[in-house]
């Protein structure tokens, strides 16, 4: 009878207790790691923020055109702060993943492994987005200044379209890098872009037939000049 109690009841209970203690210690370990990550992350954020502010990182970002975009989108109060927050996020995420890994379950270990395999793609996508935003801004400004200097009435529209076009390409490239429904994105983009061009062509052809004719005529059959020409010699 005593042996029966030992094998059927007390043994499993002891086993359960043992497993509970192991699990609890793992859980406590995970919690401690996360807590540590939160504290270190907060500290790192403050350090990064203050160092970058001292190095006038915000002014550099303003000149590159990133600062105003960050402000406009309400992402953070400044680029230095945003950089600090990114570092904080990375540290906390690393701590959480380290904690999950410490539980030694197959599922969490697989998750951690997949995350680290995915991380380079994530970073590449971020770099693509930042570079794309810079290129869009540069080309937008180039288009704006060139159009103004050519007295084109729709200079701002042209500059805006240039920026949007470059940003759309950038987002598509970034999503492609992340592997998010690659085919769907490319097909969607092609359909949208093709549709827009077709719609614009139809609208232009139907709604602004006269304008289209005038434009083509001015390009290929120059009309006699009605305005006095400048003969300024600037130098």
């Amino acid at each position, binding site marked *: 009878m005593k042996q029966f109690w030992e094998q059927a009841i007390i043994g499993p209970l002891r086993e359960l207790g043992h497993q509970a203690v192991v699990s609890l210690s793992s859980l406590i370990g995970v919690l401690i790691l996360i807590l540590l990550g939160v504290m270190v992350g907060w500290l790192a954020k403050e350090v990064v923020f203050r160092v970058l502010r001292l190095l*006038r990182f915000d002014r*550099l970002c303003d000149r590159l055109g990133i600062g105003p975009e960050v402000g406009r989108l309400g992402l953070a109060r400044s680029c230095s702060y945003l950089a600090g927050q990114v570092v904080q996020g990375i540290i906390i995420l690393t701590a959480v993943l380290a904690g999950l890994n410490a539980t030694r379950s197959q599922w969490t270990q697989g998750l951690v492994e997949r995350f680290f395999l995915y991380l380079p793609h994530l970073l590449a996508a971020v770099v693509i987005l930042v570079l794309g935003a810079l290129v869009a801004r540069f080309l937008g400004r180039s288009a*704006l*200044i060139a159009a*103004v*200097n050519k007295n084109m*009435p729709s200079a701002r529209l042209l500059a805006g379209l240039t920026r949007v076009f470059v940003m759309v390409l950038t987002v598509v490239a970034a999503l492609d890098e992340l592997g998010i429904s690659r085919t769907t994105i490319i097909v969607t983009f092609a359909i949208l872009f093709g549709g827009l061009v077709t719609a614009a062509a139809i609208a232009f052809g139907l709604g602004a037939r006269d304008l289209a004719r005038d434009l083509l005529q001015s390009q290929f059959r120059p009309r006699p000049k009605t305005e006095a020409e400048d*003969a300024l010699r*600037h*130098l």
Partner: protein
Amino acid sequence: MAEEILNVDVMEKLGALGPVEIVVGIPSYNNAQTIGHVVQAAHAGLLKYFPDHRALIVNSDGGSGDGTREAVVQTSLDTQDLLLVRHTLHPVHRLSIPYHGLPGKGSAFRTVFRIAELVQARALAVVDADLRSITPEWLDLLLRPVTEREFDYVAPYYKRHKYDGTITNSIVYPLTRVLYGRRVRQPIGGEFGISGRLARHFLGRDVWATDVARYGIDIWMTTTAIAENFRVCQSYLGAKLHDPKDPGSDLSAMLVQVVGSVFSLMETYASTWRSVLGSLPAPIFGFPFEVGLEPVPINVSRMLSAFGQGCRDLRPVYENVLSPRAYRDLMSCAEQPSDKFVLPDEVWVAVIFDFALAYHRRVIGLEHLLKSLTPLYLGWVASFARQTEEEGAAQVEERIERLCLAYEQLKSYLITQWLVRTQERRAEQ
């Protein structure tokens, strides 16, 4: 040891020639139509005014495909018609060679300077190959101050139509004057007299792989001569008539080149111009006379429209570049009715100084910055044209003098802000 820019053939020819006292340089690129006249004038000028000097005419060509070099060599001069009082002791030699290096007027000048150095020339004159109004007297006027008065740099002084040379009048002349303290009226004129000493100095500078070799040579030479205390004067040459420049070259590209060169030199000579206050006239040689000038038709309403659009569409750029006060003043100018439009001198000077500071501070890309000046410059030209519509040459010159004084009055602002921007730039680096 610097790389030799002349080939062996040229060196041998120069060696055979021996020492030469005067060199006349003519940079060219596809100027077959006009260069014959320029060579004749230079040749006649040397025979007439420097009969005792050994002289050489050098055509430094940028790879013309229209027979420019052949025209230089084949152009003949009938000395019977020159009525020479004295016969020359030495023949005037001619040399036409292609230059090496970056394509541009600066590289062509460098070749002339190197030849002048090799033949130990005391004086050089450089004249454009597209001149139609050059006379033999120009050679005397450009060279005599060097050979007999010990001047190192002779800048041209032309009579020009009031709407001719508007970048020079609104930016280059006043800015050069206010920065370096010398009143050289045509700092980018194109024709210059230079001493052998200064030519050697130019040659020794490490600028021949930069924009100076391409397009900024005129302002670079003038600024270097003034800022480095060489003896500078001017010679009155009368009217300058020349072939129109390439019609395809657009205004904003011109501003990028010219104003960019002036701003870049401001950085090179920052310590020099910060200590200069006021300005002194540069002596003028020659006999001033009235000349008939070709009319210059302009379209003020189109310029005003360009100015208005610039102020409307480039507002974010100007907000970034200009000081709050200059920005406010500029925007209130843009709101004026077009028939009453005036861009006051003080506002214009503040705009130019703020652009120079933004260039120094690298607030935005340099090409964007300089190109965005185009509508504002057209606004200045429109305002200037309106104000001088009924004015004669003397009144227009007085108006430009008032503009220069406005530049001089605001110079303290430029100096203080320059130091601030320098510190900011250093902190960022």
